[in-house]
């Protein structure tokens, strides 16, 4: 790791001040992506501002919606019976992230803010039409992910919570990398307010909704409705794990598996 100044923030406001006054500051939540990135010298921030101890960014609130504090770990989401009763697809998704030790540290806010193309939560954020709340505003989930590791967050903006509407039904299926458990492709299919929404992660530069799959499923959530459907591999990721064409194929297969779970 390169040298950096470690700063532990005692409030959201102080974290924002530390970031504003740093040459090149970065926020640290659980650190499950940032610390390996620093260790590989892929990033050299002047200041690492640890927001991990901020109590007001934690917690889970299940009512008319499922609101998850930014610092809530994947393990806590997966273990919550309230979340499972309201939105089991999200519990399943959280339970499949990384491994047990990663889930004990990794947070939903960190995952969403990073916009890793292979992260799981972004599929749920776009499919369910979640709202990303920050210290400045609320951002519609469908507009949140902009590109590879790029989001709608402005410089210094901090996610405070992610709020999911409770869908009539939803399911998540992923094809994990066998070593890292990152999604080579992950698909969430949801019926929200009578509309079928399909969120895809792992395939493109960032999570997106698939117009082709949504059109195919608009007439009813059945696996047969996806027979013969294909999607363009256009800007999809291609790496040693999977070609763009294979990812395009997997998107339809994962969508079929998700729909099959709903039957």
């Amino acid at each position, binding site marked *: *790791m*390169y*040298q*950096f*100044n*470690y700063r*532990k923030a005692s409030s959201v406001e102080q974290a924002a001040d530390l970031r504003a006054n740093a040459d090149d500051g970065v926020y*640290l939540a659980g*650190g*499950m992506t940032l*610390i*390996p990135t*620093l*260790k*590989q010298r892929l990033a050299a921030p002047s200041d*690492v501002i*640890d927001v*991990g101890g901020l109590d007001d960014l934690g917690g889970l609130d299940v009512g008319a919606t499922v609101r998850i504090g930014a610092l809530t770990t994947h*393990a806590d989401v997966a*273990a919550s019976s309230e979340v499972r009763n309201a939105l089991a697809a999200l519990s399943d998704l959280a339970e499949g992230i*990384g*491994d*047990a*030790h*990663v889930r*004990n*540290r990794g947070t939903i806010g960190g995952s969403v803010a990073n916009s890793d193309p292979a992260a799981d939560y972004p599929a749920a954020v776009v499919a369910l039409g979640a709202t990303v709340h920050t210290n400045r505003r609320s951002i519609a989930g469908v507009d949140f992910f902009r590109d590879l590791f790029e989001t709608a967050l402005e410089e210094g903006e901090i996610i405070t919570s992610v709020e999911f509407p409770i869908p009539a039904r939803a399911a998540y299926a992923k094809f994990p990398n066998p*070593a*890292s*458990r990152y999604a080579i492709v992950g698909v969430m299919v949801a019926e929200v307010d009578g509309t079928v929404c399909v969120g895809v992660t792992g395939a493109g530069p960032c999570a997106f909704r698939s117009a082709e799959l949504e059109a195919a499923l608009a007439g009813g959530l059945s696996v047969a409705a996806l027979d013969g459907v294909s999607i363009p591999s256009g800007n999809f990721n291609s790496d040693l794990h999977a070609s763009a064409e294979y990812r395009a194929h997997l998107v339809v297969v994962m969508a079929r598996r998700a729909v099959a779970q709903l039957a």
Partner: protein
Amino acid sequence: MEVTLSVNGTSHTLDVPDNALLVEVLRERLGLTGTHVGCDTSQCGACVVHMDGRAVKSCTVLAGQADGADVTTIEGIGTADELHPMQEAFRECHALQCGFCTPGMIMAAIDLVQTNGNLDEQAVRDGLEGNLCRCTGYHNIVRAVLAARDNM
């Protein structure tokens, strides 16, 4: 910077570099070399310790993040005369070959048993996904965890 953490019940206040890792503090400052560094890339789980009761990869935790935390390492769970039930089960079931992954396996397995009410073989295999055994001795490790489950 200064950090204060409790390790195996003893409080330590240490001056460490801002970019120090928890595993470096444990091994190099406190001499607790039972916690191993295998891959150093958050994958193998040889460095697993408990932080505030949960299994974490100590190669992927900054010392600053552990400030104020309660850390338990493999040295803190039993003694040579009185092994922890998980250590005893590993010995009984021959769940180690070279032994390099064993401290991390045991710390991970203890958390797994403590946080899962009904642990079956598949749940043990899934729960130890973040721990790699380079001898590939998984079968006896799973047997040991299932045996310890009944004695913890």
